[in-house]
Every structure is written in structure tokens, then in C-alpha cells.
């Protein structure tokens, strides 16, 4: 495990370095990149002033040191579009995205795993075949189309749910009312994200369990007279879980992409929306901050998946989860 943690720290360092060096490797100079086309005509004095102000005249090494120390203090720069420090802007958006991701991840994982187990256990029978058809259909619909469809159906034609935002504006709710309002706004985006992730989780769990189902230990378990449900979940599903969880961790990056679309569709005030706005308005410090935060989030979720896996499957304490995935 110590080795694994080392890997993560190394990955984190590389990400920070990339984040620092990439914009400096991009074509064009930093000032025009920072201020975009708005200030095409700039006097040399202004440019020199700006270079000095942003510390761009210093050697690269010193710049990097400065960057790191700023980062350590939580200083990610200043967003001129939102007119606030980038750190502050991100912190405002992060909880929305995180709750969206966490809830959809949890529900899609649970549903996918249980559904996958039940389908695999009844392989080739009606339930399994119906499940496969449903999942295939669901898998065929891209996330943003699904979001728009849900928005139209449940927000527009049948206005059961609010169609935009993370909370009702200008309402002074408190306590349970606020929570209810929050949940109502969360429902459709979370559902969309859940449905987007479900097919993969289902297919993975199903195939993983199909492999485990024929393992001798399942017969041993059945042979000692355990209830079918016990065999199915305690013995089979648990042993089949490792590849699924590994994949879940690895898929977090993809999930952020989906979040981007979903938040834009539902005008949800999270990181995705923020990123979209920042892109539209060439708010480079914010874009930078978003990217950094998202990569760190992905890394953290991966770490979490690894830890969870080792908790569930003792074999992984020595073996790599990916090896197990290949074996399965």
C-alpha cells in the first residue's frame, strides 16, 4: 500500500508540473494568452509592467517555485470574469459537482452491481435477456441526449422538476425546505448521470460474476448448504467486485466529462458549468484552476477505489487490481 501511495504522490507532482509548464509551452506569449485578444494593442511599457507583475520575467525555475508556494497557500490566481480569486470561485462550485457525482456514482454502482448479479445468476433466461436489451438501448443514447430528453419530459411537458439551477433563486428557505428544494434540483441531473454510468457498471458486474459463477468455491459454498442469496452475494458477488470497483475509479475522469454536459444542460452551478463559462470568456486562470481541481479529484477517487478494493478483496493486498481484471 505504501508503494501505491507513492504512486499517487508522484502522479500528483507530475500533474502540477504539467499544469505549470503546459501553458508556457503553448504558442504565443503568456500575456496575450492571459488577456486574450482584448488587449491586442499594448504599449511596451504596459507589457513590461505586466510581465513584471506576473513574474514572467524571472527565470523558469524561480517561477515554478513561486507557483508552488502560491499553490500551497491556496492561491490559484484571480478570475477577471467572476471578479474573485479563482480559489474562491472553485470552492463555491465544488460542492454542487461533488454531490452530483457522489450520488450518481453511488446509485449507479449499487444498481449496476445488484442488477448485474441478478442477471448473471439467471444467465440466458428471460430476466437476463430483457436486462441486456434494456441496457443496450440505454447505452446507445448519448448522455447529453438523455439529459435533454429527461429535461423535456419531466421538466417541460410534465413539470415535476425544476429545469435549471441548483436551488430556487430568491427564496428564503431553511432547514428541510431547503433540503427538499436542493434535492428537487438535484434529481434530474443526478438521474441523467446515473443512467449514463449504469450500463457500464451492469455489464462489468455481469461478466465478472459470470466468470466467478463457475469457480469451484461457488460449488463449495452451495455444497455446504448455504442459502442461494448467501452464495450469490457473500461468496460470488463479493469475489467478483474487484474489477468493477477498479473500473469505477478509473472511470471518474470520464464522469467529469459527462458532468460538464449535464451541468450545462441543467444549468447546474457546479464545476462543469464554471468551466464552460470560463472557456466562453477566455478566463484562463479559472480554466487552469478547474483543470487542476478535476485532475486532483480523479486522482482522489482512484485512490479511494483502490482502498475500497483492498478492503473487500484480500487478494489485492498483494496483487494489482488490473491483473485481476485481466484474469477475470
Amino acid at each position: 500500500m505504501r508503494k501505491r501511495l507513492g504512486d499517487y504522490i508522484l502522479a500528483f507532482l507530475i500533474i502540477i508540473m504539467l499544469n505549470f509548464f503546459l501553458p508556457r509551452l503553448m504558442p504565443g506569449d503568456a500575456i496575450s494568452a492571459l488577456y486574450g485578444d482584448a488587449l491586442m494593442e499594448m504599449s511596451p511599457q504596459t507589457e513590461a509592467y505586466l510581465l513584471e507583475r506576473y513574474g514572467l520575467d524571472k527565470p523558469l525555475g524561480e517561477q515554478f517555485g513561486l507557483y508552488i508556494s502560491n499553490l500551497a497557500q491556496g492561491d490559484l490566481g484571480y478570475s477577471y470574469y467572476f471578479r474573485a480569486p479563482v480559489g474562491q470561485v472553485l470552492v463555491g462550485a465544488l460542492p454542487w459537482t461533488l454531490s452530483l457525482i457522489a450520488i450518481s456514482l453511488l446509485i449507479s454502482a449499487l444498481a449496476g452491481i445488484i442488477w448485474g448479479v441478478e442477471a448473471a445468476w439467471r444467465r440466458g433466461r428471460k430476466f437476463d435477456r430483457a436486462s441486456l436489451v434494456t441496457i443496450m438501448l440505454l447505452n446507445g443514447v448519448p448522455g447529453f441526449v438523455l439529459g435533454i430528453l429527461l429535461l423535456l419530459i419531466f421538466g417541460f411537458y410534465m413539470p415535476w422538476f425544476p429545469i435549471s439551477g441548483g436551488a430556487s433563486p430568491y427564496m428564503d428557505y431553511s432547514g428541510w425546505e431547503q433540503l427538499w428544494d436542493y434535492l428537487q434540483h438535484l434529481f434530474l441531473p443526478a438521474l441523467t448521470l446515473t443512467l449514463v454510468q449504469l450500463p457500464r457498471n451492469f455489464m462489468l458486474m455481469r461478466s465478472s460474476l459470470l466468470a466467478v459463477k463457475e469457480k469451484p468455491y461457488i460449488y463449495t459454498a452451495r455444497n455446504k448448504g448455504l442459502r442461494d442469496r448467501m452464495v450469490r452475494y457473500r461468496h460470488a458477488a463479493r469475489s467478483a467486485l474487484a474489477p468493477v470497483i477498479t473500473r469505477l475509479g478509473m472511470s471518474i475522469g470520464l464522469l467529469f466529462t459527462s458532468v460538464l454536459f449535464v451541468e450545462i444542460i441543467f444549468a447546474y452551478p457546479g464545476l462543469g458549468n464554471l468551466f464552460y463559462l470560463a472557456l466562453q470568456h477566455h478566463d484562463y486562470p479559472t480554466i487552469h484552476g478547474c483543470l487542476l481541481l478535476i485532475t486532483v479529484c480523479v486522482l482522489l477517487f482512484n485512490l479511494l477505489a483502490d482502498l475500497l478494493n483492498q478492503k473487500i478483496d484480500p487478494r489485492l493486498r498483494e496483487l494489482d487490481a488490473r491483473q485481476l481484471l485481466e484474469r477475470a
Partner: protein
Amino acid sequence: MLEINNLTVSFPVSHNHERAYQHPDQAPQNVQPEASASQLTVLNKVNLSVQTGEIWGIVGESGSGKSTLALTLMGMVGEALQQGSIKFKGQELLENSPRCWEKLRGSAISMVMQQSGEMLTPTLPLIDQIMEPYLKLYPRQKETAQRLGSQLLRRVGLDESYFYRYPHTLSGGEVQRALIAMALITDPELLILDEPVSSLDVRTKSDILNLLTEITAGRTVLVISHDLHTVKRLAHRTAVLYCGAILETGPAADCLQEPAHPYTRALVRAYPTLEGARELQGIRGEFPPLNQRPEGCPFHTRCTQSLDICSWQRPEPVEVGRTSLEHTSPIGNGRRQIACHRAGVLELLRCENVVQRYKLDKKQANSEPGNNYLEAVSGVSLTLREGEVYALVGESGSGKSTLGRILAGVDRPYRGEVFFQQQPLHKMFGAAKKEQSRNLQMLFQNSGEALSHRLNVHELVSEPLQIQKIGDPKSRQKAVRKALEWVNLPVTGHFLHEYPHHLSGGELQRVALARALVLEPKVLIADEPSASLDASVQAKIIKLLLHLQNERGFALILITHELALAAKAGDKVGVMYQGKIVEEGPPAKVLRYPQHWYTKTLTDTDTDRDLLIGDKTIPHPKSAG
């Protein structure tokens, strides 16, 4: 305790060849209760009755249905069609609902399954898995379960350090021990062990066997194994399964030492032992695949003594009284049953109390007064069964050849009786005599003198056919060529027209052998068949004889003075000394643990051994007292 009656289990031919086990829930509910063409019958009318406290060993080749039998008893053959009845303590098991099976499994009947890779769930610590069956029965007694689990684990040799280990850190032997503990935790009334040691290495195997011997004492157990040694070691009684049918049942030691059914004997013969110097013999033919199971007696396609009836009528088990061994199992009676139309391995030749004596002339008689006769053979009894090689060993002058001549019907004994296929040999006349001489051939010691020098090879070999009036000249020629090919002689026209004096000693011996074999006899009595041959030719001829024995079931009495040869070729060795058979038994036993002093001197004077272990003085028995 357990009564299995006419149990037939067949599997539907599935499209996707999934494994046999399926959950009972998934079994098609309304199948036709008759086996159709799309069914593969794995067990065919199996009858077995297990009493409380008995340990039964089920033996058979892989594919014979052993494991299916066990899984049927556990209710784990979900999709299979099961007919007949299994009564466990009076309760009919085949009518059980899946729920009832779940209740029974792991509590009243436990099974240690055949090892095939990951036998334990990788995600749970060992002791949790051991406790599960108990917790299923008594869900609230976690402490008792823990206590029992640790006790049992210790008993099977896994101490505290193992309790919370995960299966992937355990070796095969440790997993096997854990599985045994798991099966025992509910103190089941019936324990089934499916190949308990077959996947283990020799050391672990013997450890586990010791453990099993200790644990199975006093229990009702079904041991399933292709390993005869395991069964011999653990079981009181044994049932031999072939193609889903039980061919022989009886006390384990008897069945596996003196097999009565041809199949059991073939199985025993194919089984390697450390003691055996004898060549291993595979069972002739191939094990029939599931979809080509023969009608009638399932073994008839590979049996050397099958009759017409064997191919269409299924033999019913009948009792046989062959309990030549003194050993009887402590539990259960000594009853033996076999399912064979021919009542087991046939007896071909038997002699009782045969005495042969020659009158001595006066000069010789005087040396020992009052004794005018030399008893060359004095009171020998022996039995030769179908497909058996009886090696008669002894020094020259011990009466071997004389006995051989009597057994072949060449000489008439002074006293005693010889029976060939249950008929008195020396009271045969006419057609019966002719038939007998066709089936009972003798190969004489000095082949050079036994072959007429006036006849060429072809005439020599075809003469017996002429005498027996078998076939026309053309078919005889064919038979001659075949016989010569058997003995590795050329069949060119040139060779066929050679006369005995043109041939070498080895060639002569082989011509004599071809002459004996051309009639395809049932019994051959070969008197020193290889004495005059070099080692290579001797090896070839012995191999040929053993091959014929395996393929055609013919029996051989091999008279030799060479112990090594007797050990290599014989199923049974008889040691002759001064006209008596002083010791008889399986070669390994006779040569390794000789009981009679004479045999001891024989084994000690074995020249090869002298070379190996150096000179050694042999105390003479008489001087030693």
C-alpha cells in the same frame, strides 16, 4: 441408512455446454420422465445400500459417474433427470424441493468436493468459511461456531495462525484440510469424500490419508476415488463403477486384491504400485464416451470373455462366494456381488492334489529303502483364471515340467484330477478332447526337438489347423501368416519353406510359439519359453504373450527358473520345491516377503542381486535347523 435403488441420472444435451451443476431453481420443471435420445445417461440403475457406520469406497475410471453419484446425493445436479429412488434414513431425497436440499446439505450430509483450483472463497477469512454451515443451522450461536471451528481446524492440523488467513495464502494440502474441517463442523450423518487426496503430492497425500483414517472412524462415509490405494486404505466395502453401472461390490480388501469381475481385475492390473515389478497393463479398448454407451453389460466391448448375451442383456448383480482371503471387514458382512453374465473371471484350468510318480530302478531305489518311487509331483493344487499369467518357479528337478505336462493333458497323473473349463481333462474323448486340445496348448521346453525336421515352417505352423480341420488351405495360409507376424517372424515365401535345421534357436522357439498360437488357444502352458533365447528376443516374446493376454484374455502358465522373469510377467507366482508348491501369491509379495525358506534362498541367490550387494553366504536350512 442410505438406500439407492435403480438410480438413473441423465443430463439433457445442452446447447451451451455449461457445467453440469446448476442451481436447482433453474431446473426445467416439467421434463418428460423418460430418457430420450437427447439425454446422456451418466448413472444407469445404480443400487447401493449403505449401513450406518460403514465406509464405502466407490472406484472407477474417470467418466464412470462417481462424482455425479456424489453430487446427486447432495442434490447438486439441478438440471439432470433423476429416476429411481434415494432413501436417506427413510426419507426419499429425489422428491426434495430445493429448499429441502439446502437444509440437508452441509448438515445431515456433507461433502468434501474434488479439488479443482480455488475451492474456498477468496474474499473471506478461513474460519468464517468453516463456520458458515454451523451458523446456517444455528444462526445465533456464533461463539459455539467459533469454538467448534477452531477445534476442528486444530484437529485437521491447522493452528491459530491459519484462522484468519485468506485462501490464496494456503497450499493445496491446507485447503484440503480446511475443507475436511468444514464438512465436519455440523457433525454430519453421512460424509462424502470426492477424490480426497488425488490432487496432492505423495507426502501430503499420506498425511491427509492418516487424518482421514482417524476422522472417518465410526462415521458413515462414502469415499470416491480412482485411486485404489485410497479406497483400500479407508473403505470397508467397495463398489466398482463403470459407465454409470455398478459391476462389483464387496469388502474393499477382497475386491481389490482378488477381483472377481473382469473389469475390476483390469483396473487393478492397470494400477501402479511401488511393490509391483510387474508390467502395467492398460485396459484394452477405449473408455466409451457418454453418447456411445454400450447396451447390455457396459464392459462387454472391452471384456475378453464376453458372450453374445453380454451385448444385449444387462447382467443383474449376483452373489459370489469367492472369499479366498481371510480378511473380512470389521463392519458389514463379507458378501460380494458382481454383475456379470459369466459370473466373473472364468476359471480355465484347475488341478486338485495332483501326484505323479515314477518307478525307480533297483539300483536307485536301494539308496533309500522302502521307497521304490520318485514322486516328481506330490499333491499340487492350482487354479488358473481367464487372462491370468501363472508363473511356476523352481529349480530344475522340482517337478515344474512334469506338472506342466499333466496340466496340458499330455501325461496322465498318478493321482488327482485336472479340470479344464470345469470338465475333467483326463476323461475327455472324441470331439470334446479335440476341442480341449485346441484351447489348451503346450509349448515344450526344447523346441528344436519338438518340431519335426521333416516339415517346413509353413507345414509346421499349419499342421494344428489341419488336425483340427479348421478352414480351407487359403484361410489356413492366412492364419499361418498372422501367427508368424505375432511372433515377429518374416512371412516371405522363402522363410515359409525353410526347414527347422536352417533356423536359429530363437527362430525355432518362435516357430514353436506360432504353432501353439495359430489355434488361438485359451490356455498356453509354456515350459521355459525363453530359456534358449537371448535377452532381446526373450523380452519380445514375453511382451507378445502379455499383449495377447491383455487383448484376448488368454491365460498362460509360465514355467521358468528365472525369478526376475516370473516377477515381471506373472500375476501370480507359485514356487515349486520337491514336487510341491511351497508358496504362492502375487509376485511382489512372494519375492519381497518370502515366507518359505526355499523361496528365501531363491531370492537370495538371484545372481543380479549378488552382483549388486556383493557376496553373501547363505546358511543352509538343514544346518540351521
